[in-house]
């Protein structure tokens, strides 16, 4: 427990100390909320889909968690380059424990980031439809955070340096985001597109958040929750395995 706590605390401290990064990571969701929210809002409403901000905010909250979590996971590469990873890898603790501590730390940071975006959304007009669902919404937020921190760690465990990072950004993180239904509704999509979205775990996270916060789930909260829990467990196991195989 002490090891997990130490790993967790380290990540929180680092996050708290790097204010520019913290603010930088908030810039993007803010931009999406304002530009899309106010830009597309009128079109969305004309199409008879209701208030766009109600639709968009859960998506942007999920987005901010996705990005922060992935970056937190990929941080392993920095730890490797600056040598700190060696300090943890030769310590008499199992790599599973290290992985749990790191993932919880990264996920906590991403979760906090999501909360901040939620607060900003409310400040610009988003309204939670049923406060009773807030605890479940928090569960969804934490699951998204856990899943993608573990995924980031798994990927980073296989990478030597940051060179492949743009590849991951453009061919993994961006598609996961854009093809999750965070920005547009899932109804009436061409089938191929729909299929891709069906195998994207973030789609379930977004839908779950939308269901709990805006009462507008498309897939259904129960399925969302089940899929998120299952995928998070699988990815965590894969991540732990990849992490345990690191050679320096």
């Amino acid at each position, binding site marked *: 427990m002490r090891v997990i*706590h130490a790993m967790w605390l380290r990540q929180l401290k680092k996050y708290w100390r790097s204010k520019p990064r913290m603010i930088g990571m908030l810039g993007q969701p803010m931009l999406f909320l304002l530009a899309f929210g106010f830009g597309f809002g009128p079109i969305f409403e004309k199409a008879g889909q209701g208030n766009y901000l109600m639709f968009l905010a859960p998506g942007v909250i999920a987005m901010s968690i996705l990005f922060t979590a992935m970056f937190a996971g990929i941080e392993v590469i920095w730890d490797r380059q600056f040598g*700190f990873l*060696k300090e943890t*890898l*030769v310590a*008499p*603790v199992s790599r599973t424990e290290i992985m749990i501590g790191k993932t919880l730390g990264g996920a906590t940071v991403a979760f906090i980031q999501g909360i901040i975006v939620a607060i900003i959304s409310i400040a610009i007009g988003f309204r939670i439809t049923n406060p009773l669902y807030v605890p479940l919404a928090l569960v969804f937020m934490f699951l998204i955070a856990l899943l993608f921190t573990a995924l980031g760690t798994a990927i980073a465990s296989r990478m030597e340096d940051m060179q492949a990072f743009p590849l991951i950004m453009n061919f993994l993180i961006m598609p996961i985001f854009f093809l999750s239904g965070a920005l547009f509704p899932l109804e009436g999509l061409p089938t191929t597109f729909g299929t891709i979205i069906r195998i994207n775990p973030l789609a379930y996270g977004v839908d779950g958040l939308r269901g709990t916060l805006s009462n507008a789930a498309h897939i259904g909260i129960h399925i969302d929750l089940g899929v998120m829990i299952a995928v998070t467990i699988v990815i965590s196991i894969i991540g732990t395995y990849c992490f345990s195989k690191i050679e320096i």
Partner: protein
Amino acid sequence: MKNESAITVKKLVKKFKDFKAVDNISFDVKQGEIFAFLGPNGAGKTTTIKVLTTLLHPTEGKISVNGFDPVKETDKTRSSFGIVFQDPTLDVDLTANENMEFHAAMYHVSKKEAKQRIEHLLKLMELWDRKDELVKNFSGGMKRRLEIARGLIHHPKILFLDEPTLGLDPQTRNKIWTYIKDLNKKQNMTVFFTTHYMEEADEVADTIAIIDHGKILIQGTSNKLKQKTKTKSLEQAFLKLTGRSLRKENGSFKETFRNINRMWRG
């Protein structure tokens, strides 16, 4: 498994792709011994240490650390040694004290004991008054001192030191070795270290092995090495054995990065 040896290495080979960084070496380190592992740049010292400390898998050969097999019994092996790496491994976004506390947690040193040892070691390394400063603001020598202090928080059966005193002034080096020799005596702690300071090896090591191009050339006490090579000092013996030419590094990006890093730190 009980035996007299702290470390046993038999016919160890470590290849990186086709390149043999460690080429069929064998040696034995007795419990409670101070063992110096010397060799020119790129000889394979760090690679050997990484294999012994579970960071790399051996390509061939048998090794045992404290009676454990670092390949199969990784967790048991890890709980039996401590290490100070050649390359920096501090978290520069944390303070000196936080780096120390993190280490104590990782090595299961009780909070009370950790507190005392951290204070003692930071005072010894003259870092106590800067303990709450972020490590990124430290000078190269201060970082190195902190790194060594951190490696001494827990008292392992075997301590690996990869060029521990690199870039440190003579006063500090002296202090560090006095402290380590004391631990070695009082706790029968085995010490396995590398260095490029021959006088350091001459003074503290019970046994010395010289490695070059991945092969061990000679091993024994300092006197034995001098006798065999018919030289007067360890430095002369070293040069006679390993030649006077400079070492071509493998030229990889990593190596370059490391050298630059080292220059900055030095």
